[in-house]
């Protein structure tokens, strides 16, 4: 699939209330290109609750239910159970896609219980976390997804903890499909949605969503920041199915040695939320800590990639 082959049908309509350069609305657009109109959408409290536009307008041209913060996995469990009934009764010729659209707050933090429960029951739906690495809707407070050293309004000297790895927690649930995606690689994202659509059970896709007001970069740089995240290793693209992890797009190229791992500094410098690492004076320790972690992860992955050809056909999950 090439970009110019994407279907022209737009489910996410013009005139939404999103900020300039909003990654969430761009992600929704690509997702629906792959999923199509036969989709029932549950939007969990997040920026998407707002940028879909207030009553009585809506930028979402599919049946949509907005739900409370901690309900993603649960409301989709109800929708999918009801859809099964409607298929059994013959009211639906085929089961529609059921899509949960939640932010990182609604996934990493308050919504993890409902998501974990649904994944354990292998309820049949696609769960998307568009991860802007903070509570951006409420004015950028830290979340479980906020990266180490990032400024937020309640980590004013930089977050002291590393983010938790929810995609790997979803892998540990044994769900049939887990993928990560980036706005800078839309065809990769499209392919992942297209693949997820054909699978039955709980499918989890996480999209990194660089947020201009939250991360403090110009709104025209969303895609640039998203690309740098992948090139520096700060965001990895992979999918996991059938017990096997496969890296894709930019991440795959670094692992296979086709492109070099860009120094994290390039990524950090782009964003105001990491400015305290560079001024008034450089925080060499923290920059080295982050760089060290990225280098370690990719050296490990590059090594196993080389070994793979000789010893066994296995690809490691992202090491910690």
């Amino acid at each position: 699939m090439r970009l110019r082959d994407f279907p022209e049908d737009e489910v996410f309509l013009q005139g939404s209330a999103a900020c300039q350069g909003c990654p969430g609305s761009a992600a929704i657009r690509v997702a629906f290109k792959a999923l199509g109109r036969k989709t029932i959408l549950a939007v969990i409290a997040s920026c998407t609750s707002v940028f879909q536009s207030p009553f009585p307008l809506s930028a979402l041209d599919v049946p949509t239910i907005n739900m409370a913060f901690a309900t993603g996995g649960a409301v989709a469990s109800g929708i999918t159970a009801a859809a099964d009934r409607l298929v059994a009764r013959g009211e639906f010729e085929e089961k529609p896609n059921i899509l949960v659209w939640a932010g990182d707050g609604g996934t990493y933090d308050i919504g993890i219980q409902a998501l974990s429960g649904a994944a354990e029951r292998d309820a049949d739906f696609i769960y998307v976390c568009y991860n802007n690495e903070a509570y951006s809707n409420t004015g950028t407070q830290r979340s479980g997804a906020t990266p180490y050293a990032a400024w937020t309004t309640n980590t004013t000297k930089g977050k002291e903890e590393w983010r938790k790895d929810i995609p790997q927690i979803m892998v540990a649930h044994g769900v049939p499909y887990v993928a990560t995606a980036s706005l800078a690689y839309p065809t990769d994202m499209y392919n992942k949605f297209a693949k997820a659509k054909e699978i039955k059970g709980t499918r989890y896709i996480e999209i990194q969503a660089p947020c201009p007001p939250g991360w403090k970069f110009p709104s025209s740089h969303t895609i640039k920041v998203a690309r740098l995240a992948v090139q520096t290793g700060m965001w990895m693209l992979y999918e996991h199915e059938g017990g096997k992890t496969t890296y894709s797009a930019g991440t795959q190229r670094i692992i296979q040695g086709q492109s070099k791992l860009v120094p994290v500094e390039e990524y950090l410098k782009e964003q105001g939320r990491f400015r305290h690492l560079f001024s008034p004076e450089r925080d060499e320790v923290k920059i080295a800590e982050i760089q060290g972690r990225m280098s370690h992860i990719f050296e490990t992955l590059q090594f196993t990639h080389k070994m793979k050809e000789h010893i066994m056909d296995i690809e490691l999950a992202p090491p910690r």
Partner: protein
Amino acid sequence: MRRVETGNHVAAWGARLARVEVVSAYPITPQTQVIEEISRFIDEGEMDCEYIPVESEHSAMAAMIGSAAMGVRSFSATSAHGLLYMHELLHWAAGIRLPMVMVNVNRALGPGWNIWCDHQDTIAARDTGWIQIYCASHQEILDTTIQAFRITEDPKVILPVMVCYDAIFLSHNYMQVEIPDQETVDRFLPPFRSLWKLDLDYPLTHGAVIYPDDYEEVRYSMFQGLDNAREAIKAAAAEYRDVVGSFHGDMVETYRMEDAECALVAMGSMASEAKVAVDELRERGYRCGVVRVRSFRPFPREELRELLAPLRAVMVIDRSVSFGLEGPLYSEVKAVIYGHSDAEVYDIITGLGGRDVTYELMVENTEAALKGRLEQETRWPTVRLNEHHLVMKKGLEEYWKKEGVR
């Protein structure tokens, strides 16, 4: 079919006969038998239904909202802490205008852990926009669960219904019930046709951001829906009597009220005890009757006004507390007869955490009230004073001295 069942099993029968298609519930004592029985019905092929064994009550209600929004008849069951845990979504279910039925086994709240009966859990959910009907017998649990679907699916209502019944007294005791056959219930309860649903052919966005310009209208429409529920409850009870046969009152149930000068007002199984008390009071020469509030939301405003306003005295029996004020039922009874009546209104709070409420207690207190020995206020006649009362009365210093604490 006549069977001897627990109240919980009877509630499961209600869901089965109503042809519920999605059940989503989380176990909590004393509700567990409801979902165990439904699971058994499904496993043995007696009920064609999806059961979602969710990981919490919050998710139980979220899943119910999801399935009801797809236009499928949905049911859940909970109790006490479960009801509190789903409180956010009780508001959501009512606010987004979805028909659904949930039974709640009325259980006391912790701490300390208490699995016995009182009404504090559902009283705490009073202002969520749910219809609340309190049952007083096993037969009524069955009949009300079926009627509840007629009420909730009434296009003039479209608000969820909570069928409440007392822990242990009704949930776990066995009683004889008459279970109607499926064809009869089908004649009473047609298949569910929803007013709105998540419709692929007519895609709408539900529950989005709503500005002050529009919000009040939404709340007012809920207010009207609950007002309309009065007629729907009466119509459902009357038609159920015609089609199926049994009747337990509609907004209220009355007992020996024809010539009464004093009424005992209560909810749930305690009101059955009040009937015994009234018989005894009449033996003693007091013309008393019972008004059992069956529907607490919507509150039986007109019915109570008509029944209670002409009386000399009203004795309210509360099985819950509004801390910092009085018994909640007491407040509301006074409110609806205000300006219409000279009746003296008394209140006792009793039976909390499953404490036994005897007819003797009711007789004693009503007699004292009628003899003018009581103030018109909330009293706690069955409470025993404990150590903390000493602290509150004499102060901590005095208490420590008594206990020998330095």
